[in-house]
């Protein structure tokens, strides 16, 4: 099976990356989570509950469509995996449903989450409501300003949103605060981490909950166009939607896998969230991976127009895939992402999330080099309704 290409050791290490770098207080909870997840994987009832909820509550499967007018603009054949059609508007719900089901199995009444763009927070709030769990979401106050609509959605779904004023007031600081909550209330609380980040078993577990993206896409692409795509493209913050798409194709060397990081105002400006170009190894939020840091090992502030990509650490499995040459990583700037946002909206009638717009931007930039016969499958990881106000603001129309 293709997933065996990238399997961590028993401690959750992908080569030099990953692991479990947490305060001692959390070790018990991580071990409990790992045991419960292993049991759940082999439990037919859990799998049935998961599949049913993904189908009836979240709306799986999501289709793959060919984007013909966008293809003309890009100069290659572009296909879209429509994760934007899922309930709550992004792929994030695949994971939050899985983790809420696990929380119920562990008998914990309370879940917490961090959120950047708000998509993971909304997806957590929705799943928590569905399963009757108390829910607290931590969000940087700068992100809360950029994503006001999602803050209100979370509150309507019954979650308490706690704005975080520390540091850069973005996703990194929200994760810090969520970890502090968890280390305090670990006995009655599960932390629903929202990406393929953090200590083991989160990177593996969150990946597994998103593998459905690639499994569906592989069969759908074959039915629609025949065979395999030439290129997979996905945006990478922590990297959950990308790993979810890539994983079903890891055994296929002929399929290029491109992760697109946020170049913000450009790599040279220092105001970006692209970790791969500097390739600096560090430990942040429980995992060893590529991070943006200064010479003293202090984590740097990042910038992206997209709150969901505005984060200094890359998922550890992506760092490993990069080093092994099993996937490649590029980047797109704020301006390129905004242009792609407008292009998809006008040409296909779909408002893409600013995160996903980075993957579209790469396709617009590189499509002509790939040529008109190249078949590129882009993971449209989320919809852009949440971004309308921010797009108008940064383009001077708001």
């Amino acid at each position: 099976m293709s997933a065996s290409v990238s399997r961590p050791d028993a401690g959750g290490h992908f080569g030099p990356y990953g692991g479990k770098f947490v305060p001692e207080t959390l070790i018990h909870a991580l071990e409990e989570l790992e045991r419960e997840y292993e049991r759940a994987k082999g439990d037919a009832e859990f799998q049935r509950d998961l599949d049913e909820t993904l189908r009836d509550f979240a709306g799986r499967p999501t289709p793959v469509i060919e984007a013909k007018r966008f293809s003309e603009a890009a100069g290659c054949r572009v296909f879209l995996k429509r994760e934007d059609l899922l309930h709550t508007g992004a792929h994030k719900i695949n994971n939050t449903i899985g983790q809420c089901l696990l929380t119920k199995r562990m008998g914990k009444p309370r879940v917490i989450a961090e959120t950047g763009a708000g998509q993971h927070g909304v997806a957590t709030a929705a799943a928590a409501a569905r399963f009757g769990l108390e829910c607290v979401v931590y969000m940087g106050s700068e992100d809360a300003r950029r994503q006001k609509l999602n803050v209100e959605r979370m509150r309507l779904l019954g979650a308490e949103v706690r704005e975080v004023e520390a540091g850069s007031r973005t996703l990194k600081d929200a994760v810090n605060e969520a970890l502090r909550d968890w280390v305090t209330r670990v006995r009655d609380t599960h932390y629903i981490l929202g990406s393929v980040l953090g200590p083991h078993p989160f990177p593996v577990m969150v990946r597994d909950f998103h593998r459905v993206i690639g499994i569906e896409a592989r069969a759908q692409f074959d039915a629609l166009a025949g065979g395999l795509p030439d290129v997979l493209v996905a945006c990478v913050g922590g990297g959950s939607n990308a790993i979810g798409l890539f994983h079903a194709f890891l055994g296929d060397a002929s399929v290029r896998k491109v992760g697109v990081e946020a170049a913000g105002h450009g790599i040279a400006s220092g105001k970006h969230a692209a970790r791969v170009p500097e390739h600096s190894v560090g430990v942040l939020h429980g995992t060893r991976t590529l991070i943006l840091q200064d010479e003293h090992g202090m984590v740097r502030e990042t910038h992206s127009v997209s709150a969901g990509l505005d984060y200094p650490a890359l998922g550890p499995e992506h760092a490993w895939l990069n080093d092994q040459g099993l996937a490649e990583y590029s980047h797109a700037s704020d301006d390129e992402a905004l242009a792609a946002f407008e292009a998809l909206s006008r040409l296909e009638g779909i408002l893409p999330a600013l995160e996903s717009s980075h993957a579209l931007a790469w396709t617009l930039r590189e499509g002509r080099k790939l040529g008109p016969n190249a078949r590129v499958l882009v993971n449209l990881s989320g919809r852009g309704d949440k971004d309308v106000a921010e797009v108008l603001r940064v383009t001077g129309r708001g």
Partner: protein
Amino acid sequence: MNPSRLEAAFAAHRGRTGLIPFVTAGYPSLDATLEMLRAFDRAGALAVEVGIPFSDPIADGPDIQRASEWALRERVGTEDVLHTIERFRAGSELPVEVMTYANPVVRMGAAAFAARAKAAGVDGVIISDLPPEESAETWKAFDDAGVDTITLVAPTTDEDRVPDLLRRCRGFVYCLARTGVTGQGAGYSGSIPDRVALIRTHTALPVAVGFGIASGDDARKLSGVADAVIVGAAFIRRITENPAQGAVERVESFARELTGALAG
């Protein structure tokens, strides 16, 4: 081999519960930190713990977070902290541990960090987010340099894990009084005397208790239970009252209050 400074200090305090105060280096300035270390020595502390400021201190509550942010704004780096300890060491034999997170150590390189710390007169190191199963080379680097690695035992640590933690422990054992972050009363505690007794069945090392100990009364309750109490955020709050004036005096006075409570 001569006993380490930590061993000698615990031996000298045998039968009494000692005080280990914590301050964040560079809050409000490195010179003030140096003066505070000297004040702790005068006040009869058993050892001192110096926090290396880090950008993402997930185990720390608001008091120490803000102290770290202050120090980082003043551009206090790991090397500056070690240099301050070196200045202190020139005039004192009080044991010094540094508390840090994994990333500043990884960034400098564990061997370089350990060697530099040893040369500066650091006796022990606590790495908040480094469990014994991670990064064997880091633990070995401190052993090789002769810097004690102090491991933490949490209220949530399973009993069958305690021996694994103690195998990696040097100097003394840090028993967490509660779950949660530094300086906060929230979190789960359980019976501290029972935890300390459990630890003692597995080790002859001294046991210090910390997290959430904020007053002379809190300290007194642990007198005769632990070999030392660690007090951090409560000192930071004494500085925060007015960082520009009288911070060293307030810190010294609080240290004397605590040593008095422990002696009484």
